[in-house]
């Protein structure tokens, strides 16, 4: 390597080093900061502690946990809070970067929709509707709250509930939820919600077969098929609740 080349390389590297210190936001920052932090553009150590990254202590200097979701850092009330009521006060620990990042380039690497619900206190974590809008499809419009019946806090889909395990929604049974689950109570069901099954007709058909315990239909019937009848001690005396239905097993 000749001296001229060495000199050119050295000068270039020195210039680059100087630029790093003068324009850190261009030279080393992974993208622009969010608009609210624009004034911190050149002051990396306002948020970053050397060799330990962004610490909650530095965030809390400006963002008081008690005020998050209620007041701006300027003390003004938030006109349209994203969640109501605010939930940051119910977090088990203050770990801001678990959910938040300021740099445009880092947002790209964050796993979208990966909020860790375990960070929330138990009572808050079950109040899904405070943060999430319910889906607008016909199924979910019938349901209010208690999302955990079918969904986990890890993933929205796939759901944990397999209706076929209890009753296959085939044939005429592919109908509205409230037909069987009155008042959106998914812990109970009734088979008398349609014209086909009336207490009288069901009673008559079962008595003809010598079956007296026919209160919990899904104990024997798991689908619309008359030939798909499972065990069930139908010979016994009536023990159920006389509703042509019963409580779900789970």
């Amino acid at each position, binding site marked *: *390597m000749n001296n001229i*080349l*060495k000199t050119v*390389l050295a000068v*270039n*590297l020195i210039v*680059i*080093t100087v*630029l*790093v210190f003068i324009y850190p936001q*261009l*030279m*080393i*920052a*992974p*993208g622009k900061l969010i608009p609210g932090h624009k004034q911190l553009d050149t002051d*990396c150590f306002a948020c*970053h502690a*050397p*060799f*330990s*990254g*962004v*610490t909650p202590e530095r965030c809390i200097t400006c963002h008081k946990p008690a005020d998050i979701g209620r007041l701006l850092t300027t003390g003004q009330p938030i006109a349209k809070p994203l969640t109501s009521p605010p939930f940051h006060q119910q977090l088990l620990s203050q770990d801001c*970067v678990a959910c938040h990042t300021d*740099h*445009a*380039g880092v947002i*790209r*690497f*964050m*796993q*979208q929709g990966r909020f860790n619900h375990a960070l929330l206190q138990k009572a808050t974590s079950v109040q899904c509707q405070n943060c999430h809008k319910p889906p607008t499809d016909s199924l979910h419009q019938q349901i209010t709250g208690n999302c955990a019946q079918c969904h986990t806090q890890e993933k929205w889909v796939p759901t944990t509930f397999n209706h076929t395990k209890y009753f296959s929604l085939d044939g005429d049974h592919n109908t509205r939820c409230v037909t069987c689950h009155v008042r959106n109570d998914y812990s109970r069901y009734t088979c008398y919600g349609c014209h086909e099954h009336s207490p009288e007709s069901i009673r008559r058909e079962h008595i003809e077969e010598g079956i007296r315990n026919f209160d919990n239909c899904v104990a024997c019937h798991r689908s619309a098929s008359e030939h798909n009848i499972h065990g069930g001690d139908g010979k016994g005396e009536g023990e159920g609740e006389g509703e042509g239905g019963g409580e779900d097993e789970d």
Partner: protein
Amino acid sequence: MTTSLWRQHILPFCLLLGLLAAATLAGDYLLHRLNLVWVGRYLGIPGTVLIIISLIYSLRKRKVIAAGNPKSLLTFHEFSAWLGSLLVLIHAGIHFNAILPWLATVSMSVNVVSGLVGKLLLGQSRRHVQGEREDLQIRGFSKFEVEQALFWDAVTLDAMTKWRKVHIPIFIVFVILALGHIISIFLFWGWV
């Protein structure tokens, strides 16, 4: 330039370089498709480690270490540097944020190209041009006619020889820029 030099040496060189580019795009696409973009953030670490390991050959070549078969180490150098570069390119992810790491990426890419020139083109091209020269001389062509026939091959060879000389200086630039990037990551990122 004769078609043989192009077909036998420059085309494979272009294909290997194109393979690196295609593998980078494919890796980036797969990470996006599988919603694993965050994985790319960490590929810089194994990539850097592979490039560092590839330097064993450089140490052997300069007799800093005595152990190891130079030919095997050269093959390993070529493979691990190519693979390490691929991981770093996927890590860069075609996202333009900070200037410093991109300068490091560009210098690394130039380094890969100069390395491939050395691997695929230079030695074989020298042999090719020498063979052509001897062939023409045997067939009774005059020295002037031989030089005239091999003019473009000689020019190409000369350009490649100069390009090869870039390998070490640009590697030094790459090391310094990459170090700057790595130090800034350690300085600002929370590892725990």
